[in-house]
């Protein structure tokens, strides 16, 4: 038995999608929060906190797709065609909000409101349909003869739609705490006020999903509540409580980076929890990562690149964030 390429690859993809959720999460969150900041200068500031980095954030989504195609082509083929409409809606949302970054500043005064709306609608749609896709994925994808065997509207069901709302709230919380970190004054104060209710909503979703999924899927219940698994996984809910308490305390003082870090913690825990539920399936409920694996020649070749290059990517991404560090102020461009 040599190196288990499939295992390494699923960890890389797990990491890539995690990076995406965290980074594009706060950046989509800003779009979701736009309705709560009607002032034009506030909106300029909000956008400028992510304008130099949003491309890079979205590249992790492409990485997730390309990694899946390279390492698990069957999963890429089946999952993407099963989630056809939610993914198309997500992509259209990403188009609308992605171009708004440039168009908003190029538009004449009377046209700007249109791109503000496109930014809001696109961000909300992208987040919501990511959640719908996630929910439908957890619900399971029927496969016959290496192809999706369900219907085009299977995702239109309570759990996926509920998961869609959950992701919108999650990204809004990432966005509001990111803005606490990057702004000051009235805008920051408004975001501090928003973060409390968002946190409670986020916790409600985490609790609901934690009850709903084991009830609906005996396999997930067995994974979590069988002894001694329960012991290993017990830290996950405990850490959720810890992050939530710390976050609420941080909001009461003069917060800066702490709220963002605790929300990151919550997102990471929720995401890990879902991975624990689904493991080792890559097309739940039946196809494992090994069954969907690309030939070792493919996985190995791409792995060499990933292991060498990802550290460099992380380095220059960090450098770019460092160049644009600090608070963004109204009327303050990048100079």
């Amino acid at each position, binding site marked *: 038995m040599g190196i288990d390429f499939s295992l390494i690859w699923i960890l890389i993809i797990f990491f890539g999608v995690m990076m995406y959720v965290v980074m594009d999460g706060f950046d989509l969150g800003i779009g979701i929060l736009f309705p709560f900041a009607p002032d034009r200068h506030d909106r300029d500031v909000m956008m400028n906190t992510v*304008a*130099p980095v949003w*491309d*890079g954030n*979205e*590249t992790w989504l*492409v*990485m997730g*797709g*390309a*990694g899946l*195609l*390279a390492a698990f082509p*069957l999963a*890429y*083929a*089946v*999952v*993407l*065609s099963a989630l*056809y*409409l939610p*993914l*198309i*809606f997500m*992509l*259209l949302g*990403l*188009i*609308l909000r*992605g*171009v708004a*970054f*440039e*168009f908003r*500043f*190029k538009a004449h005064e009377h046209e700007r409101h249109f791109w503000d709306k496109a930014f809001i609608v696109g961000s909300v749609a992208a987040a919501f349909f990511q959640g719908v896709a996630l929910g439908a994925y957890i619900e399971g994808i029927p496969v016959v003869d290496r*192809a*999706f065997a369900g219907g*085009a509207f299977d995702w239109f069901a309570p759990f996926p739609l509920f998961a869609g709302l959950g992701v919108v709230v999650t990204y809004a919380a990432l966005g509001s705490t990111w803005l606490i970190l990057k702004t000051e004054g009235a805008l920051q104060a408004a975001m501090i006020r928003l973060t409390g209710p968002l946190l409670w909503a986020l916790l409600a979703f985490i609790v609901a999903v934690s009850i709903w999924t084991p009830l609906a899927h005996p396999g997930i219940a067995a994974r979590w509540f069988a002894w001694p698994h329960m012991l290993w996984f017990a830290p996950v809910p405990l850490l959720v409580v810890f992050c939530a308490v710390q976050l609420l305390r941080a909001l009461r003082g003069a917060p800066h980076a702490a709220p963002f870090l605790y929300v990151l913690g919550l997102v990471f825990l929720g995401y890990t929890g879902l991975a624990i539920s689904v493991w080792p399936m890559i097309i739940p409920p039946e196809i494992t990562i090994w069954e969907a694996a*690309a*030939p070792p*020649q*493919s996985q190995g*070749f*791409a792995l060499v*690149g990933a292991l060498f*290059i*990802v550290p460099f*990517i992380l380095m*220059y*991404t960090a*450098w*770019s964030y460092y*160049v*644009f560090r600090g608070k963004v102020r109204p*009327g303050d*461009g*990048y*100079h």
Partner: protein
Amino acid sequence: MFGFTALELARAQFAFTISFHILFPAITIGLAAYLVVLEGLWLRTRQTLYRDLYHFWSKVFALNFGMGVVSGLVMSYQFGTNWSFFSDFAGGVTGPLLAYEVLTAFFLEAGFLGVMLFGWNRVGPGLHFFSTLMVSIGTLISTTWILASNSWMQTPAGFEIIDGRAVPVDWLAVIFNPSFPYRLLHMTVAAFLATALFVAASAAWQLLRGRDNPAIRKMLSMAMWMLVVVAPMQAVIGDFHGLNTLKHQPAKIAAMEGHWENHPGEGVPLVVFAWPDEAREENRFAIEIPRLGSLILTHSWDGQFAGLKEFPREDRPPVAVVFWSFRIMVGLGVLMILLGAWSLLLRRGEALYRSRAFLRATLWMGPAGLLAILAGWFTTEVGRQPWVVYGLQRTADAVSRHEALPLAISLGLFIVVYCVVFGVGIAYMLRLVRKGPELHEGDTGLVGGPGHERQQMRPLSAATDDDLRAAAHRS
């Protein structure tokens, strides 16, 4: 749905989304390289007009890049959403190539783009130049990987079929497959040509309007030198590419030439104009030049190459589309060479900047490079049909088994959203171009550039730093 099958809708959607997408990377590749040259010249000569041109074109670049990113995102998912059997069959080969493109190119571009566009006063000049350079190199690396992948679909090599799936056995053979070097050169040069024509047209527009400054003249002159050198080069590369296609995809060449059958002992004519009729297996209304087809493709007076009738009907590409898109591409290429030659004749004195006839022609040729790219891709992609991977998997076997309804919904939405979003985006781009480069734009401390509204809304060249801040607060 509306009389279309799911396969036709999926093909229409792919053709529509990729045709829109390719326009943006083409300009991105060319402009990124142009920006490297401009910034390099600015650092070396310290002539402010280079810096002014850099700031001007970097705004256009930013808009264009943003549209390229979001339209490209769609492409990277569409292989799975719409062509799942292709992904299952060939993902082991094309997946790692796409993964390398993301790892070595997309992250590089995105990582340094922020500093390039927003970091003029945040990092030193050397580091800024380095960022521009990295973005440009990223665009070229990206071109390399995606063309390796596309070329493998045209001329697959380095693989075995195991359990009905393509398994790579020799990665060098996969990447350097027979058509890759030609296609890579042809497309890269096409991107430079398209950009040069776009830059030249915007300069011509300003000069025709009576706006004349050294920066505008400089960009016209640079673009025309590019055209003079590169347009004839492209013809030579295209010829080699054609010979390569003749060797590996003879049915495509037969369709491009509208060549149905050989007559014993006779050279193949070049069909200048015709309506290829697939049902009757002949050209109608043909205008031909005897033996020229042989001369071009076999470099001999009476050489022969396979005609369409030598391939079973079900293995032939749609002839009329391939035939005509090829002619559009070649026709535009000839016009580009002529425009370049004309510019040489006008180099003495100031004629290049004064001749209204020349400037008008240059303006009209502005979109020619992009149209030629579209026509060229139609030739090669439609010419590959009925195969998705040439000789290995048919397009009809590659498509996801969706019902027509979800495909009609997605195609309809793509058409509406693309036309609105990219239509407006292109309008904004032309609005920027219409303003033209501002002289001494970078003299103030506030080089906002893309993402910064003040620079776009009004000319600020003479204002001081404090005036600008005050103005910004008032607005």
